[in-house]
């Protein structure tokens, strides 16, 4: 009797011990994101899609036999909360990879904390900081589709290829430093490529009426306008200009809302340039995204979810290359990464030790085709090498 209880007891102890070691061997990934708050519309879909994909991967048995454990902390777009989240994720949850999907004002504290802990930091869905471009900071990585300076270059190249007459370029930004910086850069670049920048409008974030700003922009009489800012500012400036009777062509960055809004606005003069494929392409990966997110019961429109899936594929591949669930192994794996995105972008996403943005950036341009009643591709994948 005594021996039986002793055997049972030690068996139970052994079971719990092995169970706890099992749990410890998961890849713990921390996320600090603007899940709610005014900026949530841009970042919450990314993280929701990411979570759905990671759950799907775990359902298939995980990576290297281990599950990926996602710990999501909401920072509401506020830097102090992001700092607190970073501290908690790094010190308490002991994550081996930290993800930031929030406003650029949250970057500084998260970067500082992850640097101190020696944990790699991935920007997914949030703007890529300069430190991910070559020569890259050892611990900062970025999988987000848009990237400063390269986007403007690609957009101006596109405008140049399409313009049938000398280009009078209007520029639109939002009153946040990132957008303003990019549009300032675009202004200088436009002069170099022979365009005339006629006006630059900077709109403050939530405005009841974009018409006064659009009036100023329209009065300068541009025939092309390039806008690089959060989707709201881009599209409402465009709509206001159209209402004022402007007939030119407008190029904007294809954020998450682009596919849906092209169908809503139905204006052939609105071009969107982006790095993520549209869901209307109906590739096998798009069907997979639909299935996974339907199972997860996500409330967002499906076309918003490509960015989150890209992040999910990147993380899955990164973890596959990390034999041990440690920060060093993950960093080493990410320093030499090639992710097959299955058509979500123009090609694979490749990271090297010096380049944590990607070795090649691909761009497509779409516009609304009224006769076809659908969005049509105006320019197929153009590859741009990302060098120093």
């Amino acid at each position, binding site marked *: 009797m005594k021996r039986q209880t002793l055997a049972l007891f030690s068996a139970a102890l052994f079971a719990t011990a092995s169970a706890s070691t099992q749990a410890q061997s998961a890849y713990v990934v921390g996320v600090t994101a603007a899940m709610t708050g005014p900026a*949530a519309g841009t970042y919450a879909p990314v993280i929701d899609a990411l979570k759905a994909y990671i759950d799907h991967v775990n359902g298939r048995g995980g990576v290297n036999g281990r599950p990926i454990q996602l710990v999501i902390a909401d920072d509401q777009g506020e830097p102090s909360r992001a700092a607190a989240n970073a501290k908690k994720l790094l010190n308490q949850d002991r994550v081996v990879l930290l993800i930031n999907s929030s406003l650029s004002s949250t970057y500084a504290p998260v970067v500082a904390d992850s640097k101190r802990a020696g944990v790699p930091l991935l920007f997914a869905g949030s703007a890529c900081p300069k430190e991910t471009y070559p020569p890259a900071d050892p611990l900062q990585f970025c999988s987000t589709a848009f990237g400063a300076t390269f986007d403007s270059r690609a957009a101006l190249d596109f405008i140049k290829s399409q313009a049938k007459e000398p280009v009078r370029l209007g520029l639109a930004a939002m009153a946040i430093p990132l957008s303003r910086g990019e549009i300032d850069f675009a202004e200088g670049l436009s002069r170099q490529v022979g365009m005339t920048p006629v006006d630059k409008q900077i709109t403050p974030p939530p405005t009841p009426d974009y018409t006064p700003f659009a009036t*100023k922009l329209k009065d300068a009489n541009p025939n092309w306008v390039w806008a690089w800012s959060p989707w709201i500012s881009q599209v409402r400036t465009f709509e206001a200009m159209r209402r*004022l009777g402007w007939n030119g062509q407008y190029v904007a960055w294809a954020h998450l809302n682009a596919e849906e809004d092209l169908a*809503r606005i139905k204006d052939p003069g609105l071009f969107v340039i982006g790095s993520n494929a549209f869901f209307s392409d109906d590739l096998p990966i798009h069907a997979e995204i639909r299935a996974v997110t339907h199972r997860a019961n996500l409330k967002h429109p499906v076309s918003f979810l490509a960015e989150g899936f890209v992040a999910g594929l990147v993380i899955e591949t990164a973890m596959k290359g990390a034999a041990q669930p440690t920060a060093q192994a993950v960093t080493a794996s990410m320093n030499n990464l090639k992710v097959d995105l299955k058509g979500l972008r123009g090609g694979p996403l490749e990271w090297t030790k010096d380049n944590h943005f990607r070795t090649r950036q691909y761009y497509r341009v779409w516009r609304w085709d009224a006769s076809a009643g659908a969005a049509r591709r105006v320019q197929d994948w153009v590859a741009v090498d990302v060098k120093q």
Partner: protein
Amino acid sequence: MQTAVNIAVLASIYALIACGYVIVYRTSRVLSLAHGELMMLGAFGLWVTIAMFDGVPLAAALAALLLAAVVGVVVYAALMRRMTGQAVLAAVLATIALGILLRGLAVLIWGPTERHPLAALGWDNPVFELPAGARISAIDASLVGAAILCYAGLFAFLRFSPWGIRMRAAGQSPLLAAQRGISLHVIYALAWALATLTGGTAGMLLALNTALDQTMVVIGLKAFPAALVGGLDSLAGAMLGALIIATAEVLVIQFVSPLLADVVPFIVLLAMLIVRPWGLFGTREELDRV
């Protein structure tokens, strides 16, 4: 000319929102800082009625207006009624807290994604040509029309109808009005209903114009200086204040720098507070009655 049109539209937006502040303050001496959120709630109400009255847009619009008025009565009955008699600051803080609660509930119920009621209603937004090359869209024109209608209606109501006169009496002297047999609770509930009605109209039109999301709340705060500049207890003042603020904002955008657009209303407000704190048409005693 386009500038004048822009000013008119912006002034109408501010005026519609400001008259809500004024009605509540004039009647019950409470500054409702939840007005931006109530505006947003009115717009979400439209979204709800669109789903309810699928295919009959006009019914949806009317039902939304009715819903907005009912919300005002509920806000009064559930919260503000208990704050009457307490310190004014406490009542203001209660409205701030209410605004926070409503914002949280809105995200919980409807989520953070942007919505497009105009597309959902199946309506179009055509543009009209005006003399001198100016253009105005249909919804912008209806904003101006709604503002004029609301103010004309409120003036007539307060001046000629029995309930309007009772409301003015309650605003001037609650004690005497109560002794005269006027039910103060009903008057205050009516004031809140009118405020949420006009605010909700503004919210709905704004949502139809651009889109429905959480950022609308900030616009409510920007309209607040319009009410103060004109005088917190004067409707005519609210209209004039809205015009002044809108003019300042559009002219600054046009000729100085678009980045100051957010801060111009508050600079004008500050200037007014320094020079004439009770506003253009406000009554002077308001200053000390806090």
